[in-house]
């Protein structure tokens, strides 16, 4: 290593590039396939089973039992009250939708802009999107007083001659989240087909049957590839506005209301940036966990990826700070007394630590750590930052939902919110998310092998005088 340091200013050796860049470190396809298969099919360790059992227990208690109890007894077992009619349920909904933005961001926006570092972890991020949206759905349905009638929110002809109210941001939410969930699931599935076909070719038993069904008979003919490529291009472009619309509409749930502190025009982009902030943070955590717990993953996921995501996180953090300040400034300047009261309550109220915690986690921590290229390439450090950002973003949503709900225009009704059943339910959704992910990591190839291979085809080293640089060919 010392040599490399010494050589820093000079031309790097080829080994250095190979070590650093996955794209310059090609392995035969067969070997790579085996690595991915092995990471997936390796005999589950006791650690795996412990995790699964513990998570299942948490899901069973936190989600299944508590929710059943809440349906039977009413929302009274939760902590929601007047005026905090929405509590952690909506905090979690926004949080999970935020998490889900990472997958689309990585696999759609980075794909459109041909950011090559995305290749090995698009799938891992897409899985986060889908599973995160499931949790968001759970959270939003949980908070309904009569969830057994939630089908009324979907448009369908009925004898009552009633349609859902299209004036309501919640209806838009439902449409947008449904659209987003379906699209992101499809977008997860399309690039998965060739990898499943690969897995089909090298597995036996139940896996074989499963992959056979999932692969749909994919062989890799020119036509199949062409259709797939076309579809993925359409998806990559079209899902970006859908993603933006989802979180904008979520922000309208708040911004469209007549409440002080909520009625803000900047909420749309503010929420989107916030979503990316927490989403990238979550993605980096997931990557670090995958890398350290699954076989061969340190080949696919390297420092360079953490470095690249770290850069993105830093930029997003700055953008978040910009939007936060923008929102704050306008609200502060507006002079509405209730808004002033609310801003003051955010900072000086009993949960003021949360407000400062939010700023610390979302701005101070990323800015302090992510500017350094070497720290950025350190997985544990970046993922810790990611975790902290997620805590900060959860705080932000908590401040926007129950804390802001505390202050309204009727001071006689102001009241603090103390969560009750929301806590097991929230932990239950988190556990379900992890559980789904852990189980999925056993059946779904987390690395899109064909995309990595495609990338490795396109990368080479090129010499300009004494300088050796990485060169990428545009294959598409």
């Amino acid at each position: 290593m010392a040599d490399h340091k010494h050589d820093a200013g000079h031309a790097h050796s080829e080994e250095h590039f190979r070590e650093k860049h996955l794209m310059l470190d090609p392995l035969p396809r067969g070997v790579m396939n085996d690595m991915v298969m092995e990471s997936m099919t390796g005999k589950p360790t006791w650690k795996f089973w412990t995790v699964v059992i513990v998570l299942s227990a948490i899901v069973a208690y936190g989600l299944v039992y508590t929710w059943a109890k809440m349906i039977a007894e009413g929302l009274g077992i939760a902590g929601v009250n007047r005026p905090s009619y929405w509590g952690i349920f909506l905090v979690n909904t926004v949080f999970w939708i935020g998490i889900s933005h990472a997958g689309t961001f990585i696999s759609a926006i980075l794909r459109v802009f041909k950011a090559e570092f995305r290749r090995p972890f698009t799938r891992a991020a897409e899985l986060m999107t889908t599973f995160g949206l499931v949790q968001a759905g759970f959270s939003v349905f949980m908070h309904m007083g009569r969830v057994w009638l939630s089908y009324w929110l979907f448009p369908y002809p009925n004898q009552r001659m009633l349609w859902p109210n299209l004036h309501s941001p919640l209806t838009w939410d439902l449409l947008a989240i449904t659209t987003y969930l379906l699209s992101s699931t499809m977008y997860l599935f399309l690039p998965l087909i060739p990898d499943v076909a690969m897995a089909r070719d090298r597995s036996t038993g139940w896996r074989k049957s499963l992959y056979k069904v999932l692969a749909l008979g994919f062989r890799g003919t020119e036509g199949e590839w062409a259709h797939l490529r076309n579809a993925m291009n359409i998806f990559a472009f079209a899902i970006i506005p859908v993603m933006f619309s989802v979180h904008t509409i979520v922000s309208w749930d708040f911004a469209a209301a007549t409440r002080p502190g909520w009625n803000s025009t900047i909420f749309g982009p503010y929420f989107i940036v916030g979503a990316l902030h927490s989403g990238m943070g979550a993605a980096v955590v997931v990557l670090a966990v995958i890398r350290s717990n699954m076989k061969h993953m340190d080949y696919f996921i390297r420092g360079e990826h953490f470095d690249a995501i770290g850069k993105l996180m830093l930029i997003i953090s700055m953008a978040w700070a910009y939007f936060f300040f923008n929102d704050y400034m306008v609200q502060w300047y507006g002079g509405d007394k209730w808004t002033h009261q609310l801003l003051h309550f955010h900072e000086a109220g009993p949960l003021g630590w949360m407000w400062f915690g939010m700023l610390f986690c979302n701005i101070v921590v990323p800015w302090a750590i992510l500017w350094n290229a070497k720290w950025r390439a350190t997985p544990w450090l970046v993922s810790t930052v990611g975790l902290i950002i997620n805590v900060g973003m959860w705080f932000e949503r908590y401040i926007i939902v129950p804390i802001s709900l505390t202050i309204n225009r009727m001071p006689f009704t102001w009241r603090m919110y103390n969560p009750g059943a929301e806590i097991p339910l929230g932990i239950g959704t988190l556990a379900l998310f992890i559980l789904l992910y852990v189980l999925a990591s056993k059946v779904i190839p987390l690395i899109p092998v064909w995309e990595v291979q495609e990338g490795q085809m396109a990368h080479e080293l090129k010499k300009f005088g004494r300088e050796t640089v990485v060169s990428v060919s545009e294959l598409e």
Partner: protein
Amino acid sequence: MIRPEEIKMSAEETGKWGMVINQDICTGCQACVAACAMENNVTFVGEEDSGYGRSMHWIRIERFWEGEYPEVKMTPNQPMLCQQCGSAPCEPVCPAFATVHSTAESLNLQVYNRCVGTRYCANNCPYQVRSFNWRDYERPEPLPNQFNPDVTVRRRGVMEKCTFCIQRIHKAQDKAKSEGREVADGEFTTACAQACPANAIVFGRVDNPQSLVSQLAHKGHGVKHLEELGTLPNVTYFKGG
């Protein structure tokens, strides 16, 4: 079929039913609250929940303090109930059309059947006068014998609020119709107004300039709460004093 273009938006009108509340003579005695609860089958929720902002009062009496001891003064009691806004913020946000505007009566309706319990309406109510059934609150036998059969008994998971005693409106209209006449001013009133020992609450047709409530409302210096939000409330308050 209804032809929407023929339905006048209530914002252009004065509303239909309205109330005038005189805070100067309201003694805060809570008779209106009790009368409302008895008339509308409003449930009691017990000490713990009522102390946690879950009480179901459809009407509450607010009061604040001004000054420091010994110059302290209680602000005039302010009965706060659904203002039956002509342009209600609660209405558009309900995804299920559970809270809608009654074109016939110019009231805010809460349709319990249709309510799925998103509580968005309550969030968006600037007056915070909606109450949610957080649980199935127990009313042990034989307390249910007292239920008013004209009003639904709500159960957990639905939002509820003051209806301006719409059951009384219907009853009076039904009676007047069967007798072939119009409902007379003062023929009936809401439970709270009927009970109020100080007559601080007056209810009636605000679109009829001859009615007592219109005349009181136009006496001057009356305020409509949070009118600046464009909610077009139908309750006028007189602070007096």
